[in-house]
C-alpha cells in the first residue's frame, strides 16, 4: 500500500469534491510522483489558485500556498525566485490557468521558469456551478451556454508548447498510472513543465451533456484518447474527435533562474574590474 498518509493533512478530510470527481485521482497521482522523485517534503511548495483543483494543497502536508483566482503561477514565480531550492508545483484548473490567469500562464512558459504546472481540465468552472470556460468544447452545454457553446476552445497543451514550455504532457484521469509518470517527469524536468490532465466533472459537465456517470466518463476517456506515438501514424480521419495523450513536447532550453544567475555573476565580475 502506497504511504499516502505521509503526505496528507488528515484533519482536513473529508474533502469537498463531489462523488466521481477526478480531483482525487490527480491528488494521489501527484503524491506518487513526488514520492518517486525522492524530494524531501519540506523542499516542495505547492501553490494553487481558486477552483475545485485549487483545493488540492489544503489536503497536502507540504509548504502550501492558496492564492487568488488565476494568479497561482504569478505567486509561484515570486516564490521560486526568492527560494530557488524549492521544488515548486502549481495545481490549477482550466478556468484558473487559461481564462483569468491566461496571461501568467503564457508568460511563465515564455520565461521558462523552473516549475511544474498541473492543469486539471474539466471543461467548465466547477466550483461556481458549471459555467462555460475557455476549454468547453464548441457546441457543448454548460450552465451559461445551455444550448451549446458558441466559442471555440483552447488547446491547453498546444498553448503551452506555442508559448515556449519545454515539457508538455497530456493525459486523463482514466490513465492514472501514466499520470503520475508524467507528473514525475515534469517535476524532474528543469524548466517550465506542464501536465494537462482531463478530469471528469460528473456533476456539472456530464449532466448537461448527457455523458453519464463518473465511470462512464472515465470509459469515454479510455475510448476517445489516442497515444501520441499511435496518433503520429494514424490518419486525420481516424483520429478525428480523439484526444491525443502522451508527452507532446520535450525539449531543452535555458532556464530562467540559471540565465538570471549567470547575468548577475557576469555583471558583478565586470563591476569588480
Amino acid at each position, binding site marked *: 500500500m502506497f504511504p499516502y498518509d505521509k503526505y496528507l493533512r488528515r484533519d482536513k478530510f473529508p474533502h469537498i469534491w463531489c462523488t466521481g470527481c477526478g480531483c482525487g485521482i490527480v491528488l494521489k497521482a501527484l503524491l506518487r510522483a513526488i514520492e518517486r522523485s525522492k524530494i524531501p517534503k519540506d523542499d516542495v511548495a505547492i501553490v494553487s489558485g481558486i477552483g475545485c483543483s485549487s483545493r488540492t494543497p489544503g489536503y497536502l502536508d507540504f509548504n502550501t500556498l492558496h492564492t*487568488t483566482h488565476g494568479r497561482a503561477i504569478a505567486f509561484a514565480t515570486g516564490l521560486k525566485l526568492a527560494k530557488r531550492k524549492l521544488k515548486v508545483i502549481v495545481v490549477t484548473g482550466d478556468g484558473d490557468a487559461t*481564462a*483569468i490567469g491566461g496571461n501568467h500562464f503564457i508568460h511563465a512558459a515564455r520565461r521558462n521558469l523552473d516549475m511544474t504546472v498541473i492543469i486539471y481540465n474539466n471543461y467548465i468552472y466547477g466550483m461556481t456551478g458549471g459555467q462555460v470556460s*475557455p476549454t468547453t468544447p464548441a457546441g457543448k452545454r454548460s450552465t451559461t451556454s*445551455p444550448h451549446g457553446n458558441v466559442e471555440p476552445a483552447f488547446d491547453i497543451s498546444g498553448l503551452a508548447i506555442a508559448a515556449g514550455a519545454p515539457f508538455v504532457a497530456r493525459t486523463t484521469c482514466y490513465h492514472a498510472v501514466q499520470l503520475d509518470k508524467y507528473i514525475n517527469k515534469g517535476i524532474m524536468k528543469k524548466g517550465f513543465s506542464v501536465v494537462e490532465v482531463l478530469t471528469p466533472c460528473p456533476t456539472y459537465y456530464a449532466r448537461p451533456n448527457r455523458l453519464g456517470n463518473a465511470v462512464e466518463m472515465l470509459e469515454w476517456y479510455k475510448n476517445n484518447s489516442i497515444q501520441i506515438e499511435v496518433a503520429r501514424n494514424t490518419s486525420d480521419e481516424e483520429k478525428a474527435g480523439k484526444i491525443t495523450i502522451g508527452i507532446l513536447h520535450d525539449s531543452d532550453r535555458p532556464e530562467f533562474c540559471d540565465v538570471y544567475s549567470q547575468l548577475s555573476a557576469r555583471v558583478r565580475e565586470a563591476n569588480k574590474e
Partner: protein
Amino acid sequence: MIVARTGNEAMAEAMRQINPDVVAAYPITPATEVVQLFSTFVHDGTVSTQFVPAESEHSAISACVGASSAGARVMTSTSSQGLALMHEILFIAAGLRLPIVICLVNRSLSSPINIHCDHSDSLASRDSGWIQIFTENTQEAYDTTLMAVKIAEKALLPAMVTTDGFIISHGMERVELVGDAEVPKFLGERKAKTSLLDVDNPITLGALDLQDYFFEHKRSEIDAMNHVLPIIDEVQKEFGKKFGRNYNTVDEYKMDDAEVAILAMGSTGGTGKVAVDRLREQGKKVGLIRCRVYRPFPKGAMLKAVSKVKVLGIMDRADTMSTLGGHLYNECRSILYDSEERPIMKNYIYGLGGRDISIEEIEDIYAELFNIQKSGEVDKEIVYYGVRGE
C-alpha cells in the same frame, strides 16, 4: 405577482425585466447565479441582451465600459475578489460618466479566503465614484435593481446595488414582482448624449488629460455626485407611487420616540428590526436606523435620524484598517462635527467573514446602549463584537 425568490433569483428577474442591451460577467461565488440565471433568459430568447461570458471580471467590466460608451444599457454582477479585480475599471466607468449597474453580492475580501458576507468589498470601492445602495432583503434588492438603472442614467454615474452574500443572495423570501410590461415604461430607453457608434459625430473617450484639464473634469464628476441624492429621492418617490413600495435614502424604524438606536447596513437592518419589536414589547424605547444609500452619503437624512437619540450603536460589517473603526462610524462622527447636540456613539465591528449576528446579540447591544445612556460614558469606543479573545 407574488413569488418566492432568493436574492440572486430576484436580481436576475429584475435584469430580465430591464432587458439590458449588454451583460458581460464572470462567475464568482456567491454572485454567480445572478448572471447564470440571466444567461438562460438570453439563450431562451426571453431577453434581447448581448451576453459576454468574459475571461475575468476585469474583462467583464471593461466590456461593460465599451458597450456603455456606445450608448447601450449595461449591467453585470459580481462579488468580493471580482469587484476588487474590477477596481481599476470602476474609476474609469465613473470618470467617463457611464451609467453601468452592478448587482453586487457582498462577500469578504481575501486573505484569508472566505466566501461569506461582510461589506469589505463594496466599501473598498467607496471612493471609486459609484453610487452604492445596500439592501436589507430580497424585495428591496429586486426593487432597488430596477430603480438603480434609472438613477444611474439620470445621474450619469454608475451604480452598485448590494445584497448580503448568502444571507440575502441565497435566502428565499416572498417577493412582489412588478409586471413585465411596467418595467420598460418605468425606465424608458437610455438616451445617451454621445455614442461611440455615432459615426457622424465622432467623439474621443478616455483621452490623456494632464495638468491642463484633468482637475476640471474630475471636479465635474464630483459635482455630479453632489446632485445624486435628489435624483434618488425622485426615483424612489416615483417607484413608490407606481408600485406601492416606498424607500428612503436612510431607513428609520421606530425612531420617533427612541432613546437609543442602532445604525447598520444590509440584512442586519432586518435582524435589528425584529430585536426592536421584541424590546418595544417590553416597553423599551429603541429604534433602528439603516443606511440604505451609502454613496453619496445622505448627510441630511442621516443627521436628522442620528440626532433623535441619546446613544447610538453603530454596527459596521467591515473595518477601515485605520485604527479608527468602521466606515459608518467614521462618516457619522464626521457629519456630526458641526452639531450642537451629538449622541454618544459606540462602534461595533461585527460579522466579518459571515459570522452570524443574532437577534439576541443585537438585543444585548441595545442593553449595553441603555447602560451607556445611564452612565453617560463609553468605556471603549470601538469594539469587535463576537470575536474570540475580545
